[in-house]
């Protein structure tokens, strides 16, 4: 059955940043220079083709975008300025929007304004909420910790867990949708639960190490990305499990040293990324979607206020520390509540998943073809 092309999709994707994909005349250069392009996942050319022709279902079901790390080799080598790298990035944005059932991320990606408003809104609500709550539970603005602390760590900790729970639910539903689009829906694919379990190792592995990213010819983006990731994780762990200890007035070096490292990591990498995007130093930074800016700004605000309130508290300026703490929360809440499930940071989940699914899919296909007693699909074809 012939698939109906949709010439309009290319315009839709342009909104997500794929503005030059029509220039591709399919010389195959990009797929050839890409260190990750291996059968059965050949890209960026193939996804670009599907995009040009508007084969929406194929794109929705494709894992290739998640296998691309945007090292920019393809874009640099493209003879026709079709920006393969940026096209893959845009596809990731588009997919994120497709995975999200609520449609919120679609809104965000289609208009930076809406996202900005949402972020500001969430921030203000957070501020208002915490202040009211602080006043109601009789906290004193002049006390950071102790009995009548303005924002007692214990309660914040509970709030964190509640928020985390909500996020997890949102994220999981989206991930399930991702699974359905890319794996579940495909009738031809019979991947046993065993197979899923067998390949499960890939999930944490790639999540923690970004090991594939290291294969790019350029190492720096990978390093930056890794540092950012790890710093974030450390922070997450500290906040989720040691918030009380962290905000206690006595410094426990066994914990705080991690806090400081993570803060430096976060600040360093975000500043580096910001500088890059402003100067467009790498192809990866050449095109910046609104979402990229908002995300970076939030991150830097959070990191900065995080360390600042800590310093102020140490300096005994509790009132100032509390104010900064509020600002800090104003950054954290939108970032976690909006960015993670609906926008840029959702790829924290989707990329490793994509990697994981791709392994399962490839293996399943391989077994199928073996059963069909066809020649084994080789990942490298030798000519002649």
């Amino acid at each position, binding site marked *: 059955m012939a698939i109906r092309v949709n010439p309009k999709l290319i315009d839709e994707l342009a909104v997500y940043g794929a503005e030059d994909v029509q220039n591709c005349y399919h010389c195959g250069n990009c797929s050839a220079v890409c260190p990750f392009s291996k059968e059965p996942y050949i890209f960026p050319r193939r996804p670009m083709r599907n995009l040009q022709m508007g084969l929406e279902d194929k794109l929705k079901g494709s894992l290739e975008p998640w296998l691309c790390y945007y090292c920019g080799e393809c874009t640099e080598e493209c003879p026709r300025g079709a920006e393969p790298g940026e096209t893959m990035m845009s596809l990731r944005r588009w997919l994120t929007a497709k995975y999200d059932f609520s449609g919120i991320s679609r809104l965000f990606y289609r208009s930076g304004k809406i996202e900005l408003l949402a972020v500001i809104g969430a921030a203000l609500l957070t501020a208002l909420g915490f202040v009211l709550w602080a006043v109601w539970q009789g906290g004193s603005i002049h006390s950071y910790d102790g009995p009548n602390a303005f924002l007692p760590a214990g309660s914040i900790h509970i709030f964190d867990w509640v928020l985390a729970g909500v996020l997890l639910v949102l994220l999981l539903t989206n991930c399930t949708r991702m699974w359905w689009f890319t794996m579940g829906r495909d009738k031809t694919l019979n991947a046993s639960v065993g197979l899923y379990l067998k390949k499960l190792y890939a999930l944490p592995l790639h999540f923690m190490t970004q090991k594939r990213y290291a294969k790019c010819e350029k190492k720096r983006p990978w390093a930056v990305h890794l540092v950012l990731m790890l710093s974030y994780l450390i922070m997450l762990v500290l906040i989720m499990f040691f918030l009380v200890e962290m905000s206690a007035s006595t410094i426990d070096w066994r914990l705080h040293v991690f806090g400081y490292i993570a803060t430096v990591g976060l600040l360093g990498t975000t500043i580096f990324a910001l500088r890059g995007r402003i100067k467009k130093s790498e192809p990866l930074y050449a095109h910046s979607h609104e979402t990229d800016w908002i995300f970076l700004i939030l991150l830097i605000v959070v990191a900065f206020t995080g360390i600042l309130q800590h310093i102020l508290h140490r300096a005994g300026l509790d009132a100032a520390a509390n104010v900064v703490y509020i600002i800090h929360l104003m950054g954290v809440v939108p970032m976690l509540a909006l960015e993670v499930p609906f926008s840029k940071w959702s790829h924290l989940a989707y990329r490793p998943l994509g990697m994981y699914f791709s392994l399962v899919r490839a293996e399943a296909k391989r077994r199928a073809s073996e059963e069909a007693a066809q020649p084994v699909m080789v990942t*490298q074809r030798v000519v002649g």
Partner: protein
Amino acid sequence: MRTGVFIVQGWEAVQEGINLHSVESYAANLPSVERVRNLGVRPKLDPAALSEEIKKGALERIVIAGDSPGFFKPVFTRAMALAGADPDEVRLASFREHGGSGMGTPRAESIVACAVLGVPFPLAARPGTTATRPGTLIIGAGVSGIQAALEIADAGKQVYLVERRATIGGHMAMFDKTFPTLDCAACILTPKMVAVGQHEMIELMTYSEVEDVSGSPGNYTVRVRKKARHVDIESCVACNACTESCPRKAPSEFDNGIALRKSIYIPFPQAVPNAYVLDEASCLYFETNGEKCGVCAKKCPKQCVDLAQKDEIVEVEVGNIVLATGYDVYDATKIERYGYGVLPNVLTALEFERMTNASGPTGGRIVTKTRKQNKRTKEDEWVLDPDGPPPKSVAIIHCVGSRDAQHNAYCSRVCCMYSLKFAHLVKEKLPDATCHEFYIDMRAFGKGYEEFAERIEAEGTFVVRGRTAQITEVDGQMVIKGEDIVSDSMIDSPVDMAILAVGLVPAEGSERMAQMLGIGRDSDGWFSELDYNSDPTDTERGGIFVAGACQAPKDIPDTVAQASAVAAGVLKSVNTGRGLDSRAELSLSDIEARARSLART
């Protein structure tokens, strides 16, 4: 006729040097012009809105002015139809088409004037004639120059044929076979070269370069530097004694560096003139300012080696000048991913032409380079041994330096076909070798080309759609990486020889030549013709013609046709004694006046 003039700015940089404001005000003052509007850069035009505008102004004629106004014609035509006006009354004032580039604002204004008056520009801007000398200077003696020279000389008219190198024949003389008929290039070219050498109406100046051109159409004075050849063409009998005695070697230009020649040498056995030449650059005698060597002069039995010879400047007076300077090939070292110059068995097309040529360094054997120790330097180096091992698999890579925004955006027109020819030669000489063509579009457009392409595939060459991205060496084995698009697979294959189908680039010195002759070059550096469609061989300057690949990449039949076409341009002026003057010289008022008078009739 109530006319509206709309100015659009499109793609090219043509409008640089054109003051659009002055064009606008000029247009506004033309008779019957009701409305002048600048629509800006690449405007998005809505036919409905335009038709309203036409209705409001009750416009009966539209003139679209700009570098490529044609891109906006259909929308105006439709708007005219919607407005109930005559859709045929949409006229184009194309700055690019009529030489707006370089000619500046007045030219642009004159183009607009013609369009407004409904007169085709070429009619109004037709220069008068001027007395023309009978002699003709042809610069470049490749197949194009040779053809033009013979055509003109056969009519009994004097031709001065200037060639930079020591022999005529150009690139074609280097080729083995020619597509699609596969007859050997030498077989069809050498007779013509011989004819040129023997022709009493052709004064051949090889190893010479044009220094300076002065004068006006029909009456040019050209200074030609005859570089010191140090060998007397007349008395040299090509006995080879000098070469045998010469101690120095240098890479052979004719063999594109895959073989060495002595410092005093003959480019190739069938060279015309069939005489030797001494290359000062590599000569020991000149290196030591005459202290050492000079053996060739002593050894020459006819004493025709003259080491004291100096460059000589000669002046010729001609009526017409023909540019047939041809092309150079793209420098493959600029594309590092293909490893040319690093990997020994990555060849350029011309190198392969010489290798597969029966009279080439390997006697026509297709072999891979072998590692040998250099006697003197005691170092290992890659050498081309005629008895070396033949490649088991050959990859031919299309579009090297062509169709690529990072190198040359244009298509070089001949590479697809000569690549197919290479595949045939490989298959013919090494039936057991596998041969792959990696292409983007197979451009087999000429008479018998498509059939040729089909035949090559039938011969067992694998034709793969997908441009190879890189050639690397994995423990001594050359490996190419690419995508086989149609079969949806990645290619990561060992090959023994890779041939780069390098594109064509304007010949070295084209820029200086253009300045000297006062003609334009396009954005890619090729000489600009007077009119893409109707005047492919004339130029803005009277009495100056372009023929063959120096105007844009071309294959042999098209080149030959252009050469003969140029002969027509030359002969008609020589025959009547009067040739066309320069269009470049025409003033705005001349053109406008002519347009007005034509409009009246």
